[in-house]
């Protein structure tokens, strides 16, 4: 009897504790969603003046906000692709070949991951300023790729651990060239690691504030536009955009959880 009640108490405690943590994680998100329906017109847009879809409509008139979101997407996708290509090639190369300086490259890879982002941000700003590259889209993409590459490499490397290279030798013995072997043998094995790395790169890029803050020039990214709005009072159209992004994300997660996408992919 005693042991069972103990176990039950433990379970109840666990549920309450975890719920509180989830509440902690989601509380501001709930606020953001609710306030996106606030009919208020006056700064700082905090008091509730009634329910309305107005701001969702106004959102599509807000050119600068939508453009900043577009910029963020372009930067994220480009950086992700660049980082993935550079990172995958590097991981495989470092795994296969022995050469001097491997430790040095390794060390350099840890730097963007470990040091505070602000140091990387100002360092890149200093570089761009000195070789006179105007700050904007290009510098943002370079900066984002720089901090994404190590994450791609770590993810692919994790997948490489235990990879038996004899498969590749076999493939080449059978006549497939080096490049063909890479694309048809190596890459499929590494796919989950590459996918994971790419996903991480994309996530880090769309949310980046600190590094973008220094190298963005006049180009606004979505996080930077939000930072700007926070200074004057966040209009609920920003809430509306965030809510829409959130809905999109959640819908996809639900679909995968219910196995729908998996079924669709299986059929394909």
């Amino acid at each position, binding site marked *: 009897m005693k042991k069972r009640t103990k176990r039950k108490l433990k379970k109840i405690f666990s549920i309450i504790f975890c719920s509180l943590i989830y509440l902690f994680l989601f509380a501001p998100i709930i606020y953001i969603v609710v306030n996106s329906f606030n009919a208020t017109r006056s700064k*700082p847009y905090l008091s509730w003046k009634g329910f309305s879809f107005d701001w969702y409509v106004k959102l599509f008139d807000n050119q600068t*906000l939508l453009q900043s979101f577009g910029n963020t997407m372009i930067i994220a996708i480009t950086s992700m692709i660049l980082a993935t290509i550079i990172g995958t090639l590097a991981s495989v190369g470092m795994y296969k070949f022995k050469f001097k300086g491997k430790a040095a490259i390794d060390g350099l890879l840890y730097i963007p991951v470990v040091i505070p982002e602000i140091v990387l941000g100002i360092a890149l700003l200093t570089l761009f*300023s000195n070789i006179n590259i105007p700050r904007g889209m290009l510098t943002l993409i370079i900066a984002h790729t720089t901090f994404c590459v190590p994450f791609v490499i770590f993810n692919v490397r994790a997948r490489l651990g235990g990879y038996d290279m004899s498969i590749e030798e076999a493939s080449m013995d059978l006549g497939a060239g080096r490049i063909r072997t890479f694309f048809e043998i190596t890459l499929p094995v590494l796919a989950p690691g590459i*996918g994971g790395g790419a996903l991480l790169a994309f996530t880090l890029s769309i949310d980046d504030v600190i590094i973008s803050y220094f190298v963005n020039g006049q180009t606004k990214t979505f996080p930077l536009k939000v930072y700007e709005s926070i200074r004057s009072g966040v209009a609920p159209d920003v809430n509306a955009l965030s809510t829409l992004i959130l809905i999109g994300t959640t819908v996809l997660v639900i679909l995968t959880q219910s196995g729908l996408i998996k079924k669709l992919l299986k059929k394909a």
Partner: protein
Amino acid sequence: MKRKRIVCVALSLMLVLSLAGFTGCGKKSASNGELNIFTWTEYVPESVVEDFEKEYGIKVNWTTFSSNEDMLAKVKTESAGTYDIVQPSDYMVEQMISQDMLMELDKDVITNIENIDSAYINPSYDPGNKYSVPYQGGVAAIAVNTDKVSKEITSYDDLFSEDLKGSIVALDDYRAVIGMTARSMGYSMNETDTDKLAKIEEKLLKLKDNVKVYDSDSPKNSLISGDCTVGYCWAAEIALAQEENPAIKIVFPKEGPYVFMDNWAVLKTAKNSENAMKFINYMLDSETSQKVSEEFPYLNPNAKAVEALGDEYKSNEAKNPPADVIASGEYVSNLDTDTLAIYDAMWTKLKK
């Protein structure tokens, strides 16, 4: 397995989001070129800029800053041509002229300069208005939420009172705050004497417990939301806060306030100088100036616009500070690098 699923989710999500993102990329085509403006936050109405874009067919790229020093730093570090137009305050105009950073204005285009009140024409920081024209100005006054604060506040010195612990929203501007401290002691806003500076520092640190938030962009938000009950802010911010909460009153300090006048100027390295001149002329137009003051009610040097704004503006002290208040105030002026280093050290000490 779990990972594969997450990856699929993510990849499809990225596709969806990027499609959405590209909708935002439909830029309006600019037939007459572009213009890059760099202004104070909460100072130029969006509607005014949009109207300019429509009327002249010029695309405007707009960035904002929170203090003169921020603006100078960015202008110097960004590559030449990033910004065409800037909005320096009085002393900053002087500094930029001395560093040869400004382009002479084309008075043939900027005909509306005649709208400016004679009191603000030909200022000491830019004789003959060769490089700048006044935009808006005002004072940094005190806001008091009379519902929550029982103490009577009449001077900058009152802000240091122990009764006001944790209740003030102050400008995030070291010249403004240190200068205010100096004035509360009867010194100049631009004090250089090291002994006096030491005394100023001593008093300044008493402010630490009283200031809850530092905010130059939108101090009215803290006043309206109730997070702060007293403010040291730009007068127009107080005027706007008053509109949301009539209990908030403006107080002009006995010692005479920090006075400023902000101006339009064109950078020497501007790539769109013609468009810049057109923009400045547009902003000086009395109708435009009227719209500006309706949204951001600062002291308006445009005499024609002031007439059109009528009594509602003229009689509101917060929007239109009385002439004697302005006369009793002091402008910030430039200081040498050594003195500024002392100011900077004081500021760091205050904010740590």
